[in-house]
């Protein structure tokens, strides 16, 4: 379960200029829920995601996930938590273009220094699931948009995380790819993962398998 308690996040651009990205946010997300965070760019939804992932720390308030105080963890432990529990899908996929599919998906596992067989197994499983295994040795930049999408999703899932965070996943996609993404989301929901999608794409609004839609505007929940 994810809890954001009285979260305020301010960014210091320089000595005189501070931006308040979030103000006194309180949010609770239950396990297995699929949440859509609605809001325009700059409304603060990406900030919420990065706080949940432990990528940044709040100016005040706490982030608690499964009784763990994520916001209080030092970097090392926050990263370990992120690695084991969170899968991130970025706006522009953020794959490393000159590496192969398999190498890209392997990235989260590298610091773990797993036994070769164990790593192989994880890779296989996730490449199978998202139907990209037939292209595992292809260089990513040569793949089609849809294939890259699946690589990005596979990478987010390789460690079998409990939580999936997606930041504007369809912002750069055409309708067809957007719809296929939503299909994959359905698939992930059925494996009981907690999924949070931050988006302003209307395709996500009013979907039946979405548990809740939360609207963010200028740092506040509406």
């Amino acid at each position: 379960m994810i809890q954001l308690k009285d979260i305020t996040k301010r960014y210091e651009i320089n000595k005189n200029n501070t931006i308040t990205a979030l103000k006194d946010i309180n949010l609770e997300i239950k396990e297995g829920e699929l949440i859509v965070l609605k809001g325009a760019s700059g409304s603060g939804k990406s900030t919420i995601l990065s706080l949940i992932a432990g990528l940044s720390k709040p100016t005040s308030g706490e982030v608690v996930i499964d009784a763990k105080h994520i916001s209080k963890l030092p970097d090392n432990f926050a990263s370990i938590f992120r690695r084991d529990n969170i899968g991130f899908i970025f706006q522009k996929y953020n794959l490393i273009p000159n590496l192969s599919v398999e190498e890209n998906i392997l990235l989260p596992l590298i610091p773990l220094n797993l036994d070769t067989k164990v790593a192989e197994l994880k890779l296989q499983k996730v490449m199978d699931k998202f139907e990209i295994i037939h292209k595992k040795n292809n260089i990513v930049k040569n793949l089609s948009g849809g294939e890259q999408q699946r690589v990005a999703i596979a990478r987010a899932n390789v460690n079998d995380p409990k939580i999936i965070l997606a930041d504007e996943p369809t912002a750069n996609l055409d309708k067809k790819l957007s719809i296929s993404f939503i299909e994959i989301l359905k698939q992930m929901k059925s494996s009981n993962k907690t999924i949070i999608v931050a988006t302003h794409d209307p395709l996500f609004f009013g979907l039946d398998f979405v548990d809740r839609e939360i609207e963010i505007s200028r740092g506040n929940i509406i």
Partner: protein
Amino acid sequence: MLFQLMLYLIHTMEIKMRDKINLYLIEYAINAILRDKYKNFFILSIFTMLTFLLSSVFFITNSIKYELDLTLDSLPQIIVQKTKAGRVYDIDADIVDDILNISGVNNAVARVWGYYYFENIGVNFTLVGVEEFEKQYKNSLEKIVQKTTLEDANRSIMLVGRGVKDMMSKSYYDKYFNFIKPDGSLKKVFIGGVFDADTQLESNDMIVMSKDTLRDIFDMDASKATDIVVEVSNPKEIPTVALKIKQKYPDVRVITNDDLRVSYENIFDYKSGVFLALFIISLFTFFMIVYDKASGLSGEQKKEIGILKAIGWRVDDVLKEKFYESFIISFFSYLLGVSFAFVFVYILQAPWLRDIFVGYSDLKPVFELPFVLDIETLLLVFFLSVPIYISATIIPSWRVATLEADEVIR
């Protein structure tokens, strides 16, 4: 029990090894290096160049030292010279008898030799006087003396080294040579033959003749000698004997072979030390270049690190990866630089560079740099290169590793 202990330890070492060495990370590091080809190739080349120069210098000096040590070994254990007002003068030859009486002394010989300046070409010949029936102080001389007679009823004969023969031939002196005596008159000496002595460094400019001929050329009194060489039966006694000679004859200078060796070593160390000092400057410049290149990260690279952190890499993981990168580049340059130096010095015989150390003269002996492989030199070059490169990357790597990842998400 001990056996169990051993097994346990091998097992823990294995685990610890895998803890410390992450093959996946190394592979990622190599890949990252290759992805930034041009910048890294540039750094690699400069660094290889630096280690190459450094290793070459050390290889050359090591070889020369080795060759010199061989030469010095054949030098006399003690040389006694008369000094007056700080300069070397002819010594009384009969001091030899006194020295022979000192306990521990095996042999003492009065040497007659000198340098003759051949003005036409501007080179110095070393003239060595020998007495046919006297025990020579050097084995190589012994062989030479046995070969020819140096005094004929009518004329003086000399044996010359290869370099000398060539020099003399250049001035059209083929069968004999006219030495100019101090009073201006000429002394004609016939060339009896050419010899090759044991080591190349010393024999090339040498001429062997009888003591009388030599005394004639240099106008030296029959009772005098240039210096006296002493042979001691037990090498450990050398300092003691040297001291005794010094005490008996306060106006002489006593030089032991150890003194010679030390002074030569110091000259070499001095020369290579100067080179090293210059190297420091270039290293400093290089440090700045590396720092600059490593700090200047493109937006692309910053993004990549951001992604890695977002998918769960800790700061420590990024630091480790950066460390692997710098170690691989620097170590590889080191290996390349040393290998190139190896080929350059021992196979190509180090053209141009060796002149700085051997000294430039026409009578420069043609000798081959002997192969000397010194672990210490390899370590020396390693410590001067790899740790310094890595230190230049510490701060840039840290800056990268501590980037705020959430900016990547935008």
